């Protein structure tokens, strides 16, 4: 039997259109603005996009931020996957404590965080304190903690951690093998979700990078915004596109896994 899709009420189309317009009009305005020529202020040219692409600062900061994001993701996964796994398996009572701790980065303003961190790490070696790969990543791992924790927590809650672990052990697997071969592949979607959120945070984080005087992509964006009106609009749209590309890939992977999870639930 074919299921008929329920008909949408006419008022629903109006609300849908208003919602779409709310998000789309500013983007359209930014896009049209970005097509104006810098010298004359007249439409239409891709000059601003060319300016951005040929600006070495764009590529340099994009690379720095992207590498920072990858480092943040790697450290966060290495730190939080075993921790959340262990908490779910051995000390589930600690889960609410971890959840509470994960909320702290939301509550503490970045400016307070960076001042505190600068003070804490003041005596550390220059290769750590003066380099974005050291100090800045520490701050970003803290910022990514809530996103990583809640994603992983949801992932671990969707599988039977105890039974899978015990089944793996009974077949002779060690803890490491169990984590890498059995647990991690089954929380892949959750780990990816946390990773993409961490990527989005690092690609857009301004306050901490600015106060600790590192030159990252958001700093470059801010600099262009203050000095070049039309290229700033083009750069804004391009960073928007980069973020969306990451989000769409997450959606794509998540949908594939989601279908499988639905089957799993149905079979039980």
């Amino acid at each position, binding site marked *: 039997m074919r299921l008929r899709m329920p008909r949408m009420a006419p008022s629903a189309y109006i609300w849908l259109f208003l919602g779409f317009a709310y998000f789309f009009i500013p983007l359209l305005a930014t896009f049209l603005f970005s097509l104006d020529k810098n010298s004359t202020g007249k439409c239409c040219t891709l000059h601003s996009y060319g300016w951005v692409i040929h600006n070495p600062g764009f590529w340099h900061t994009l690379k720095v931020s992207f590498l920072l994001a990858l480092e943040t993701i790697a450290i966060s996964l290495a730190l939080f996957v075993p921790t959340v796994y262990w908490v779910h398996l051995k000390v589930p009572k600690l889960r609410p404590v971890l959840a509470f701790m994960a909320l702290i980065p939301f509550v503490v303003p970045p400016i307070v965080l960076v001042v505190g961190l600068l003070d804490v790490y003041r005596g550390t070696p220059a290769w750590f304190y003066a380099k974005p790969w050291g100090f800045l990543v520490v701050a970003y791992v803290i910022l990514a903690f809530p996103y990583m924790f809640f994603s992983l927590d949801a992932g671990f809650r969707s599988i039977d951690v105890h039974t899978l672990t015990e089944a793996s052990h*009974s077949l002779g697997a060690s803890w490491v093998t169990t984590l890498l071969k059995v647990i991690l592949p089954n929380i892949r979607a959750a780990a990816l979700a946390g990773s993409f959120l961490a990527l989005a945070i690092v690609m857009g984080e301004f306050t901490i990078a600015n106060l600790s005087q590192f030159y990252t992509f958001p700093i470059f964006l801010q600099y262009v915004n203050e000095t070049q009106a039309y290229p700033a609009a083009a750069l804004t749209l391009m960073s928007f596109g980069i973020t969306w590309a990451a989000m769409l890939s997450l959606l794509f992977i998540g949908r594939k896994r989601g279908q499988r999870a639905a089957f799993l639930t149905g079979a039980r």
Partner: protein
Amino acid sequence: MAYLELQGLVRDFGTVKALDGIEISLGEGEFLSLLGPSGCGKTTALRLVAGFDRPDAGRIVVDGKDVTRVAPNKRDMGMVFQAYSLFPNMSARQNVEFGLRIRGKERGDRRKRVDDLLELVGLAAAGDRYPYQLSGGMQQRVALARALAIEPRVLLLDEPLSALDAKVRVQLREEIRRIQLELGITTLYVTHDQEEALSVSDHVAVMYRGRIEQMGAPAEMYSAPATPFVAEFIGTMNRLEGTVVDPSTGAVETGGVTLIVEAAKAKPRGARVLVLIRPETVEVAAANGAGANTMTGEVLTHTFLGPVTRLRITSSGASLIADMPTARAAALPPGSKVDAALPAAEARLLDLTDEPLPEIAEEPAPVGR
């Protein structure tokens, strides 16, 4: 010689004594079922054997070697769990192969062993399917193949059929027994379903409050329960509380009726006893004047169980259960006055202690069993 021995196993969870010094000795290739109600400690015992938990006292010996402190991944125990435990990211074939990969077996050997095992559990054509593409019964078959793949020293089964529907359960338990006999693998099976335990095991151990109440062959457990709990848990049993009034004749007074029980001759006068009578041995007929060992009463309810109908009869305050062929039961509807002849002469008799009798919810077997 014993192959698997559980020696004085004790496990406390705070104030709860989950295991209170259990002793089990099982020969190689034998099938033992641990049977008991929820919370009796049967799963705890199994988890100790698997190595997922450590006992507070006692030893686990397999083939003469103490494995009490050995890590679970070094014990070579194959286990099938109550919950579906297949790795969702792997196909049925990869699941079965997992333990062999861990052991570093050659690819060719692995492939042959996996093929053989999938064939053995009747899933040769489903090797490439993922767990979400398999039914519950198929998943448990793959889990069984996976546990057998590593050629375990002992096969542990933790209520593997409890999530399945009745028909698949019966089918799969027979297959488990067939495979176990074919491979001659020592097996420990945990279940709360007495029919399951009685039908597939060489030995059954009934557990209650962390202790083994009785262990023996299924027929022995059914016909000669050693304790009131076993009598109540294995099958359905009429338990008539009474007092020995005349040891010379074996007269026991129960609910205003005097029964002559052979076993009561060995008891002192005034001894409080429990007369145990299986419902299927009670002969029920329309009231016609009570004879020896007969209680007169009224039919309270009928419970249709397929080939037989279970009658609940009340007689001078005592309640009695009798099973009779369904065709004959129709002649004795609820409200009928009946005589219930008890085969009391050969009835089992147990001493009644001051400890209250355990209450177990009665679950009539489904129609058609």
